[in-house]
Each structure stands twice: as C-alpha cells, then as structure tokens.
C-alpha cells in the first residue's frame, strides 16, 4: 500500500436485506484519498454516502470489495483505525447536559488521552474552534453552528491523522457553514490533516481538493472539482424564454443542442458552439412567437455538472410538470 494513500476502497459493496429482496446501498465504489487532502463525497439523500463512510470506518460489515484507512483494513484492524481516525456521525448530538469543557474532557477520556495531554490540547482546540469564551456553557445552550464546531473539536481531541465527517453542516445556516469550512481549510493548511466529508451541498465540493459524486450507490464521478465541472457537455447558455414549456419542448430537437436543464424561469442549454447556436435558438423560438431574455454564456457550477451526470448515467430525466399548476 502506498504511503501517500490515507483512505482506500475498491469495488466496495454493502448489501442490505429487505423484505422484498436486497438493495445495494453501496454498489461497487472505488476511491482513494491521498494524505493531507480534503475529499468531498457529495450526493443527495439516500445516495449511499453514510453507508460508504460507515463501511470504510468498519462500523458496518462490507459485503464485498476492499476498504482501509492508513493501510489498516476496515474490518480487521478496527482498534488501529479508532486510534488514528476521528469521526462525526450524521446528526451526531453532543450530550446537552455537559458543558463545552466537560464535553471535551469526556471525549478525551473515552479516547484515552492522558490528563497532561488534555491540559495542552483542549485549550488549543477550543481556541481554534472559537469556543474559548464558552467553556462553561451547556451543550444544549449552544447555537447550531457552535454545536458543529464543538463536535469537530471533540473529534480531534486524540490528534487523529484522518477525520471522517458525515454531513457536519446539515441544517446550519450559510454563515455557520462558511465558518465550519474555513476551520476545515485551516486544518488542511496548518496540520496537513486528511479530511473526508460527506455533504448534500454541491457548493461545498468547491472547497475540496477532490470530489466523489455519489448517486444510487455508485460514484458517478471522482476527480478534482475543476475536472468534474468540465464533464458537462459543451458550453452553457442561460436565458429566460417568454413562454417556458413550449420552449423547453422545442429546444432539445435543435441542431447542436446537447442537453437542457431548467433553472426557475430560466433554461440552461448546453450547446456545441455558443456563438453560432445562440442565434439559431433565438430564431427557432421567434418562429413560435417566443422571445428570449438575457441570453448569455455562463460557467457551469458543480450543480449543473451533477445534474448532467445523473441524467446521462442513470437515465433520470428532469420532469416538467409546471403546466399542471
């Protein structure tokens, strides 16, 4: 095993038995996270992100394939993994009847951190998380964002080399989300920590070195954010048609149109040649009495890339039912 690899999975499968048969929550996932890297496992609810994380951690038994952290096998070397890895479970709740300081001590004790070490590390971590002024506040009295930061500080108390964070920013507002990601960035820059994070937020992918896009148990992409964004077909035109549904029906049949996505009152049209095709689209719509407002070329974001990848690989098509409203 290469020393540079912190997290490794090959052809990983996790099958759950159900009443009507079996479902592969993780269906042949192969991924690799290098040391010091921030890896984002991105995907909607139910894509299999949590199951993948729990199998890699050894909390769930894998059905097939291989998985390891720092070269330690997920299923056989659980003690070694626990010593070296931090984890925040999804919707993890800290004991609300303990203060911030008591929470830190509790997690330190559980991880077997000596009292001397605790005296050094805990103030450092609380300072890093911006919680130094709240050491006596009860967990239940903290804001959502502060709870998340405390959970992160607790997961780092045994100085792990790798942390796995399962939707650590779920339900917190954009300000707290930004603060949390700034902390992760600082950990990456200052400590070289390897960070594996699951998130339903596409924009958080931009803050990772590497992202895996997961959908229905499979990785539909696994690359740098820049490369994933380039996986969309062609270039992207955005505009608002005066009559939405007829435009949405007409455009996919035009020459050079590779894909169409809806965005509120706007259409996102992927074309082979934006300069040439924009006039053709305008003319084709004008022939039907439809005008286009604000036509311009835009840079695809992670979300456009993700939608495009899902539609191409799973056959899941965007439904258009707005006529029924």
């Amino acid at each position, binding site marked *: 095993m290469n020393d540079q690899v912190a997290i490794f999975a090959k052809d990983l499968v996790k099958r759950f038995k159900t009443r009507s048969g079996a479902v592969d929550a993780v269906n042949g996932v192969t991924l690799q996270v290098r040391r010091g890297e921030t890896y984002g496992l991105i995907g909607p609810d139910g894509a299999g992100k949590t199951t993948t994380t729990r199998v890699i951690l050894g909390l769930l038994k894998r059905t097939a394939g291989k998985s390891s952290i720092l070269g330690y096998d997920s299923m056989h070397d659980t003690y070694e993994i626990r010593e070296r890895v931090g984890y925040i479970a999804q919707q993890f709740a800290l004991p609300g009847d303990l203060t911030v300081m008591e929470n830190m001590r509790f997690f330190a004790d559980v991880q077997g951190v000596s009292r001397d070490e605790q005296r050094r590390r805990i103030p450092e971590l609380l300072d890093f998380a911006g919680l130094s002024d709240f050491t006596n506040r009860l967990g239940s009295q903290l*804001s959502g964002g502060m709870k998340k930061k405390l959970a992160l500080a607790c997961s780092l108390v045994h100085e792990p080399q790798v942390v796995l964070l399962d939707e650590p920013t779920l339900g917190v*507002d954009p300000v707290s989300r930004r603060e949390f990601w700034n902390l992760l960035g600082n950990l990456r820059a200052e400590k*070289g920590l390897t960070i594996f994070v699951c998130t339903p937020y596409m924009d958080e992918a931009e*803050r990772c*070195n590497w992202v895996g896009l997961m959908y229905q148990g499979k990785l539909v992409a696994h690359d740098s954010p820049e490369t994933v964004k380039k996986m969309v077909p062609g270039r992207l035109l955005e505009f608002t048609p005066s009559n939405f549904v007829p435009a949405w029906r007409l455009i996919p049949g035009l020459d050079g149109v590779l894909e169409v996505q809806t965005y509120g009152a706007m259409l996102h049209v992927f074309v082979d040649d934006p300069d040439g095709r924009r006039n053709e689209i305008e003319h084709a719509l004008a022939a039907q009495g439809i005008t286009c407002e604000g036509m311009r070329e835009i840079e695809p974001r992670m*979300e456009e890339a993700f939608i495009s990848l899902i539609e191409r690989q799973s056959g899941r098509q965007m*439904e*258009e039912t707005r006529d029924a409203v």
Partner: protein
Amino acid sequence: MSEYTIEVHDLTKRFGDFTAVDRINFSVRRGEIYGWLGPNGAGKTTTIRMLLGLLKITEGSAQVLGYDPTTQAKTLHARVGYMSQLFTLYNDLTAYENIRFYGQAYGLSRSELARRQAEIIEMAGLQGRENELTANLSGGWKQRLALGCAIVHRPQVVFLDEPTAGVDPISRREFWGLIYAMAKKGVTVMVTTHYMDEAELCQRVGFISRGKLVALDTPGRLKQTQMRGHVLEIGCDDSEAAMRILLAAKEAGALPLDEVALYGAQIHAVVPDAELFKQPVWDFLVGEGIRVNDVVWIAPTLEDVFISAVTA
C-alpha cells in the same frame, strides 16, 4: 385590490426581553417570488408565523391580501398556503388520501376536490402512484405532494419555509419550476432557504439578521451594493503553504485581509480594493517563496454578499 399582497410596517415580535423581529418593513407584489434569508435564529420563521396569524404581533402591523393576520386569521387561512420544511404529510396515508385530507380540511366541495386531486397528482408527477403510501415515496415526490397539499385550496399567497431541505438537485430544480409556474399565475410566494443558488432564483431577496432587515433588493443589485470589499482568487503551486502565510499576514496586519479561505486548490481572499491590493498580495506571497500562477478579481457569489451583510 392593492398591488401588494404582503405589506409589513415596523413589524416587531418580542418574547420577554428578547426581540426576535425588530421593526421590519417590506412589501411583496402580487405574483412575486420573495426570498427571505437569514442565519438560524435570525427571525425568519417568526416573521412567517406572524404573517400567518399563528403568533401575535407585538408592535407594528402586517397585512396579507388586505387582511390583518391577528384579527382575521380565519379568513386569511382560506386564502394562503403554508408548507414547512417538515413536509406535513401523513406517511400512513396514500398520496390520494393526503390530498383528500387537506382538501376536506379546507372545505372543498366534492367536485372541486376531485378536480384538484387530479391536478395535484399530475403536478407532482405521481400518475400511477396515487395509491402508494406516502412513506414509500422518494424525497422529490413527497416534496411536490406536500406543495400540492399546501395549495389544494388555490391560495393567492404561499409561504414556503425551507421547502427543499434534503432533496436531490434534480428534484430541487423541478420544484422551482413549480414555484415559477405559480407565480406566473399571480400567486405570491414568500420562501426561505439555506441554498444560495435558490436565493438567486428569487425576484427579490430580504436578508434578516438578529431580527433586523439588513438588505432588500434583487439578487443582482445586492451583489453590486452589499459586498464589503472585493474577492481575489489566488492560484498557486502550494495552496496549503500560501494559506498559512496569508493567515499569518492577516493576523499580523501585514495585509488588509478581511477573510482568507481555501477553495479546493485556490484561495479566496477578501480585500478592501481588488485593483489596489492584487499586486501587493501577489508580491507578498512571492516574497515568502510561493510560486503564484494568478490572482484574479472574481465576482462575489450571493453567499459572499449574504455573509458580508449579516456579519456587518
């Protein structure tokens, strides 16, 4: 009737000593999609609950469709819809039964209910699944069914409180298609969300912070007027090392950096003026032994603007 379907004057809500909503003023036009954004605990839901007549107004006034929510709540409820992030559907009822339950609660006639059932099933894309238990539907279907139930009585104003939490990107896009279709028919939509790409889809956006309205405009104009400083995107060979250097420079006051953050392989730094500080930032990094590839002044995202406005 007035051009405005929601009008709020000096709206205030106090819980004991705590002012949750503090003298807020805004108006929403008929058929407008109005985004109501703020950090958790800023007063978003409290505002909506006052507009629905579910919470008593402490001071100031509000009118929805010309009705006073405090004294005319019942009349109002027949004309407004409300969907909360919890998708208040009955999981042990089928899709059909949920629509019927809400339709009956709103006192729809038998023939009107039959018509609405068909329309909502089509809108939610649930043809063929009418008799499936709601518990077995995926997030996107549940979400559209919940919207259908919230508008079963054809309300003129709809309040959506984080309606898209936890559904996949395709379903969120489909949902926003429905929001636009409602607005086009003249329904006023007031919506809260934590997704900034959805805020971009609102015609106007109000930012609320600690109970106060701190900014209100179109997303485009907010980006021009509300951002303190400019965002520089820095590309260099060793972004972790560059980040350490910039954090230290910020701490020591060597560079006027408002925020420094890693974005994948790039660094975003907020400076007072991009033209003025682009070169000094570049030179500083080079002086510390970093190979800089480029420093670009980039447009702020609505999230940058939001954070700037609510942390002022």
